[in-house]
């Protein structure tokens, strides 16, 4: 019965979303327009995050490694 209660909970969440954004009051074609716009925006944001966040993280990691690596090399050369 966990699946059923999960489905009920998700349906209740969807109802809350409908009430808050007033799509409960819209006619079907308005709802279609509104959801299409929202889903398009959401997909674009997620895609942008997917493409750019991994590149940014790896660049940042490289930068910090280079910084600490340089420092390590400098200290080693002084000691030498």
């Amino acid at each position, binding site marked *: 019965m966990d699946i059923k209660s999960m489905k009920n909970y998700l349906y209740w969440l969807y*109802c809350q979303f409908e009430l*808050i954004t*007033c*799509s*409960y009051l819209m006619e079907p074609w308005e709802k279609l327009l*509104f959801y299409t716009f929202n889903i398009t925006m959401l997909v674009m944001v997620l895609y942008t995050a997917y493409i750019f966040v991994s590149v940014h993280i790896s660049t940042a990691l490289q930068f910090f490694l280079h910084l600490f690596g340089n420092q390590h090399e400098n200290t080693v050369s002084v000691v030498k």
Partner: protein
Amino acid sequence: INHIVHNGGLYKRPFNEDFEETPMLVAVLTYVGYGVLTLFGYLRDFMRQWKIEKCQNATEREEQKDFVPLYQDFENFYNRNLYMRIRDSWNRPICSVPGAKVDMMERVSHDYNWTFTYTGRVIKDIINMGSYNYLGFAQKAGTCQEAAAKVLSQYGAGVCSTRQEMGNLDKHEELEKLVARFLGVESAMAYGMGFATNSMNIPALVGKGCLILSDELNHASLVLGARLSGATIRIFKHNNMQSLEKLLKDAIVHGQPRTRRPWKKILILVEGIYSMEGSIVRLPEVIALKKKYKSYLYLDEAHSIGALGPTGRGVVEYFGLNPEDVDVMMGTFTKSFGAAGGYIGGKKELIDYLRTYSHSAVYATSLSPPVVEQIITSMKCIMGEDGTTVGKARVQQLAENTRYFRRRLKEMGFIIYGNEDSPVVPLMLYMPAKIGAFGREMLKRNIGVVVVGFPATPIIESRARFCLSAAHTKEMLDTALKEINEVGDLLQLKYSRHRLVPLLDRPFDETTYEETED
């Protein structure tokens, strides 16, 4: 004589009123909802103008398109795009007496609330939480109905004249004597329509050169009467005595605006119970201020007569004050007496003046005889003069129902405005989609409620307003509460954080007001 100092000495019982603040998240989400609806409103208006969609609302004719536009202001935009979507919660046709249970005609709309058709089915026995039936006198059987039927067969239904010409029946004289006795004033006069009582009599009492101090949330009839009179109107914050005192001081010190002459009259307009907030006026303080600054008080007891006080005499009895302190006591027969019309009570000179100078007495038709008989019978029942204790039992039942209902709703976690003793219970909804959803869900569960939005309330503070009645039994209230609980969980309306915000004005001390107990 022992002076019991309790809340500064003016109040003989605790005054519990609270208006919980709107939670920030709820306010933001409400604005989001209104924003989305506004955008779609613009889209629909664009489509209507470019003939992509059929225009079903009122527009100007083709020849008048170059004139000053009639339907471009915000009210009309709101009407077309927001009100139409949830219009099925209002103007519902009922087809039985509006007692504790009511029958309603079912209607459906196939074009999203622009037109309605009746399916032919009648929804029976809907628990009525919306009618102003405080003492349960809206009945189709009983002593009131029999007396009214007898008078109808004796006098007929129409009066066909105004009070001053040929419409002054002996029934009206009897009614006025009874009303004066009920209120504890010298004399009273009854009019055919409650709204007209306010809007037609305030111009007879004040004119140019007078000052009217009216509460922020006064009813449209008081506002209309004040504007028609031509007097200067100043508004004080709702139930806020510091604001009222400041206005009174400024009025006395500075006088009329240009000439600095003293005002001819200062009239304070307040209501007994404010029907949108459920708050009760702070009458002891208002009377103390009125006596200190020598002004007049006009008290509109439309919702509080019959509903407050141990014997139902209204807000004056609720606070234990003297009715002679209020200069003009106005009320209506619509709410607690199950009839129609309004009255004004006061000193004999005042009422004799109004008999001659009131617009309503000169031009409006007087009360219809069966309606007068309904008022007389119900008033005698409340006073106990018909030999039974039915009236007293009803007043007590209403008080019990009020306390029980309010306590249970607060415990469930809803935000409820107003005073603990007022039978008008506003439950906050805030979001526009929830207004429509609440009305529809409650009707599905066989409970009829009244939901209110803009322009009767501020735009984010929309609410559902319950009016309790002595005719509601505890079982009906329990059923209603169970359904409200269910709908509250379904729509997530339980916003309250159980945090009682203390009343915003400072506590009164002895230096500000006169002591009235002596």
